[in-house]
């Protein structure tokens, strides 16, 4: 049972861009603007010109339902849009089209790995809205004189996923974000690698104070940092006998601190009213058919991996935690040639996929940097005992750093495993050249054997199997 000594309560509002759609939510402008000049994919609707009329993208509604269902929400019978009124240059028409008391879905949950095992975080609602434009400040936000505005982003379909205040630590908040992102990727509604794809506002309070809302968080790590900072800040305020007030704070990513925004905007007064240009939606009837199309989600896939392939739960969790690796693993197993099917078991594959993952991460590369066929060749060399494990690692590294093919690297570096006579000779030489180690071993110092194994490996340039070398040594030392 997690005690939560400070009574930390965290709720997150996550803005998810449905960026796999072809067009924006209320107009036919493209969503593919990321490499284009500012204001080159805009129209009267997303610029908010007088008289322009929004019409909702049917696929955006379907995607929203898909996400709602995957988050265990109920798709509402009646849903409609509102105008949230505020004057800020990111939305030129003076209001944002969003939802209010009739969101498209509500009342769901996500299961995360919490401080004390599985932990359920409630989803208050997931509602649709339009993304505002992107503001560029010259210099820092508090110093610049002007704001430059690019409306290419304006009108992108957003889903705001609002959680209950169920997270009890910054770590849980981060896990929640990871899980949500994971689910969204499986649903194929969202590409998390695009700039601005996922933006987070965090609400946090500790026992004895009111909550602060932290804005401008743009990464999962940022969320954790901002929340850690905020807990310390709030505790300090209380310890000095102060009062933690209800306020909005801005996360300064570079300095890893939160700053009070102290402005009259605090007095939120959005004067919501139903959007007269969009008629209500009655689409709960779509839910059963959309539910049929939901893919296998991360948790289900993880459990299947454990059951079907006999791999460990944490391995399955790590694989399914990223769609690309889960797919890699299964595609990989399918690619085994029949003759290797028996020897190449999934447990071996997962172990080597983890090695590959580590090498890729170290070099800041993605899975695309390594051919699946190469991985297959390496494992085949390994299970047919032609190379050692060290040799396999060497091939992976060489492929990443210099390229080539596994067979070429094996030939070039002479990685073919040596056995029998060569190992025997190496063992004999090692014994002869290290009398002290031999004496130590015979005197009962087990550890001395390791240095002898090391000497054998050095002589064979790492091509001997360490376990075999050890056995031969033991035999000779009698």
């Amino acid at each position, binding site marked *: 049972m997690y005690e939560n000594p400070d009574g930390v309560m965290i709720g997150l509002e996550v803005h998810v861009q449905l960026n796999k759609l072809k067009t924006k939510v209320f107009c*036919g402008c493209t969503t593919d603007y990321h490499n284009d000049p500012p204001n*080159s994919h805009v129209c009267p609707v997303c610029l908010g010109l007088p008289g322009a009329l929004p019409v*909702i993208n*049917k696929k955006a509604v379907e995607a929203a339902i898909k996400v709602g269902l995957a988050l265990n929400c109920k798709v509402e019978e009646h849903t409609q849009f509102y105008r949230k009124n505020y004057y800020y240059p990111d939305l030129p028409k003076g209001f944002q089209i969003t939802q209010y008391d009739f969101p498209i879905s509500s009342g769901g949950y996500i299961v995360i790995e919490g401080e004390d095992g599985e932990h359920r975080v409630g989803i208050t609602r997931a509602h649709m809205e339009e993304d505002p434009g992107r503001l560029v400040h010259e210099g820092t*936000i508090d110093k610049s004189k*002007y704001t430059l505005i690019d409306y290419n982003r304006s009108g992108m379909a957003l889903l705001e996923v609002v959680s209950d205040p169920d997270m009890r630590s910054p770590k849980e908040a981060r896990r929640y974000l990871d899980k949500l992102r994971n689910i969204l990727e499986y649903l194929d509604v969202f590409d998390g690698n695009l700039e601005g794809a996922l933006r987070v506002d965090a609400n946090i309070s500790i026992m004895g104070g009111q909550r602060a809302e932290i804005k401008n968080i743009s990464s999962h790590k940022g969320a954790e940092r901002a929340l850690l900072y905020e807990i310390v800040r709030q505790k300090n305020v209380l310890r000095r006998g102060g009062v933690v007030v209800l306020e909005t704070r801005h996360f300064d990513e570079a300095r890893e601190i939160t700053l009070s925004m102290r402005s009259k905007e605090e007095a939120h007064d959005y004067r919501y009213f139903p959007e*007269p240009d969009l008629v209500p939606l009655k*689409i709960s009837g779509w839910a059963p058919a959309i539910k049929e199309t939901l893919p296998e989600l991360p948790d289900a896939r993880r459990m299947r991996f454990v059951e079907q392939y006999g791999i460990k739960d944490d391995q399955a969790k790590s694989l399914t935690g990223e769609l690309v690796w889960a797919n890699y693993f299964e595609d990989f197993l399918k690619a085994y040639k029949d003759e290797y099917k028996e020897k190449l078991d999934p447990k071996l594959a997962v172990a080597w996929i983890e090695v590959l993952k580590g090498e890729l991460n170290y070099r800041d590369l993605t899975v695309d940097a390594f051919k699946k066929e190469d991985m297959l060749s390496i494992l085949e060399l390994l299970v047919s005992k032609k190379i050692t494990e060290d040799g396999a690692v060497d091939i992976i590294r060489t492929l990443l750093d210099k390229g080539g093919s596994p067979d070429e690297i094996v030939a070039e570096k002479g990685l073919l495993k040596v056995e029998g006579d060569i190992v025997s000779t190496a063992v004999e030489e090692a014994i002869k050249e290290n009398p002290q180690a031999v004496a130590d071993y015979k005197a009962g110092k087990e550890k001395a054997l390791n240095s002898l194994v090391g000497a054998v490996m050095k002589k064979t340039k790492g091509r001997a199997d360490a376990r075999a070398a050890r056995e031969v040594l033991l035999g000779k030392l009698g």
Partner: protein
Amino acid sequence: MIAKKDLEHIAWLSRLELSEEDMEKYTPRLNSVLDYFGELDEVDTEGVEPTYHVLPINNVFREDEINAPAKSLTQEEALSNAPKKQDGFFKAPRMM
């Protein structure tokens, strides 16, 4: 009843700058508008479904097709009415 400070707040929300004189003038006017709407409160709406929309239609959609129903503008067209622009951006005073 709308007091002067409510009017100040409403004006601020709409980014309008009102002079003292404007305030004196608008406060009673807004109150009379509110009084007029207040008459609606006298209607008995017991058991009547709220009306969110005047049209008796639901579910109007567009397909996810680029440039449908209308085409995007060029950057030049988009910026043609902007009082201030810079490097293809609209330019506005800084706001916090």
